[in-house]
């Protein structure tokens, strides 16, 4: 079981739930807001090679203070303060979807923080000709096939299953709205908040991991990232936007190889 703790910054105005496990060089994982658990088999696999830290974003159960954060810059500063509080001067940064956008922001604004950067189907750029799926608003029957390569797979069905009782179901609805409204605060209505102007500041070696059948965040964005982040490598994984949960072994192995190389 990962270590589970709460880390305060700003005199307690913002608190992060941080799960941590493993041994080795520090690696910080930034979640997608659409992941529904704070830890996963993918992180277990990474924890075999790294000291993995997985903070939950403000707005996700366990973390607090979303209402005090104004915008993406404010959140980026909050994560810088969190890394300071965790004593992590420098770490490997890994992020998925919105978490990828977050990791890239940190690596651009605080280049010294990033030992390396792994972006798994990151948001943050925009092309009018290939909009990423509107994952903040898709009804559940349209969201699942956008995120999962095989919505009928066990892991996808587990993700999609709502609790049985009305009370638990209302709580789950509230949680879902809170996750998405928190992400909306930083990414509404288009997840381009100026990152393209900052990407040249990234100095860390960068890996892009992308599902070859990603329906939520199309593969053309991999080209955009490669064009803007000098020397970024692209590794395609078979599968969809949630590939790291559909095939955690492939995703974890790619990261271990990239960082070890």
């Amino acid at each position, binding site marked *: 079981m990962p270590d589970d703790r709460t880390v305060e910054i700003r005199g307690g105005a913002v608190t992060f739930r941080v799960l941590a496990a493993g041994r080795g060089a520090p690696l910080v994982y930034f979640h997608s807001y659409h992941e529904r658990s704070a830890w996963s088999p993918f992180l277990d696999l990474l924890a075999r090679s790294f000291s993995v830290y997985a903070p939950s974003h403000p707005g996700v159960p366990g973390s607090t203070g979303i209402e005090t954060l104004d915008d993406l810059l404010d959140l980026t500063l909050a994560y810088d303060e969190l890394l300071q509080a965790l004593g992590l001067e420098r770490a490997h940064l890994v992020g998925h979807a919105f978490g990828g956008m977050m990791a890239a922001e940190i690596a651009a604004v605080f280049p010294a923080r990033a030992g390396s950067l792994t972006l798994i189907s990151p948001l943050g750029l925009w092309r009018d000709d290939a909009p990423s799926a509107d994952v903040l*608003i898709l009804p559940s029957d349209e969201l699942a096939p956008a995120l999962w390569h095989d919505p009928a797979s066990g892991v996808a069905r587990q993700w999609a299953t709502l609790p049985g009782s009305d009370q638990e179901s209302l709580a789950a609805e*509230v949680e879902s*709205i*809170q*996750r*998405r*409204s928190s992400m*909306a*605060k930083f990414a*509404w209505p288009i997840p381009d908040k100026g990152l393209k102007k900052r990407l040249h500041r990234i100095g860390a070696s960068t890996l892009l991991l992308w599902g070859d059948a990603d329906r939520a965040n199309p593969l053309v964005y991999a080209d955009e990232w490669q064009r803007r982040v000098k020397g970024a490598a692209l590794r395609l994984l078979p599968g969809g936007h949630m590939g790291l949960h559909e095939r955690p072994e492939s995703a974890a192995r790619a990261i271990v190889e990239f960082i070890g190389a």
Partner: protein
Amino acid sequence: MPYRFLPDDFEQRYRSVWVDVPHHLHDPEKTRGLYHEFLDELEFAETQGFDGLCVNEHHNNAYGLMPSPNLMAAALTRRTSQAAIVVLGNSLAAYNPPLRVAEEFAMLDLLSDGRLVAGFPVGTSMDMNFAYGINPATLRDRYYEAHDLVMQAWTRPEVFSFNGKYTQIRYANIWPQPLQKPHPPVWIPGGGSVETWEWTAKLDYVYCYLSYFGYKRGKATMDGFWEASARVGADDNPFRAGFLQLVCVSETDAEAEREYFPHVHYFYQKCLNVWEGFAEAPGYRTVKTVQSGTRAQVGAAARRVRQSLDWGQYLDQGYVIAGSPATVRQQLTECIKTLRVGHLMVLLQIGSMPKELALKNTELFAKEVMPHVRDLWPGYKDRWWPSGARNGSA
């Protein structure tokens, strides 16, 4: 102000009447005439003795062709002279800077000789978050700040600076100032958000529930408002409340069905056909409101309820009050009494209803119904009526 010419199979072929309704469905040649029809209908209502004429704001949709209610209100000021001009209203968060609302409402108040009611809705999620791209996580905060700025612009005697989170004005100083003092009456159209009740009552404004689903379903919301009013120590003056009800009057109950059903059905099946994803951006409703069990007025759940409704069901559920003058009088009295509503707003042009029928509905309502439902709250003073308008309730 619906677009009346959507194809018969609209709701089967298109997912939403709002936000991404394709505008190849819109024929400007037909809409050109519509605006004058709408203005004619409102002006006719004044001649029939209505106390106020309402206009409101919607965007990206075929349900209400009025992105700028102020333009329509301005046109009304020239051809009317008695009725209140009730603008319900300007969605404050959408204006940058919100001082624009303070200015335009001041102009309307002057143009109308003090007949303006200033409505400040948060705005629907479709309008604000989708059509105008405003962040749902901060929409309400932005709205409250914009409200503070507008009210200060109307009431502070000096040039002032406003250092807001969303708007910074170094020299706030609007010209002209409104005619009504200290400011035009403020009405807050709400869709059932819990927070809005207390806020409205505390500030001594009118709360208006613009419900699509009639007085029976509206009761929980109005009860919520009255409970919130009591909590903050406001009195129970019915003129604190407004309510919108769809009404169709004809010679007989049977005639009402024959004349009005197709238009009512058009309204519920086409004009409210909103795709689930657009019904409510995440964060539009606060957690408190979600937990209160208030549901969105549009979207998949609402569609399931609406689908396959027949005339009898529209009436039984109170969506529409329709029938002979006697039937309408009786039910409308029940509506006014049970909801405790001093300002009743009636929607008389509904869905695809053509002008002649809207005028008939207006005339019959004015002659056969209005006199009977006008004075149901003796002993209460309407402190929220514009000083320049005729007041039939006082």
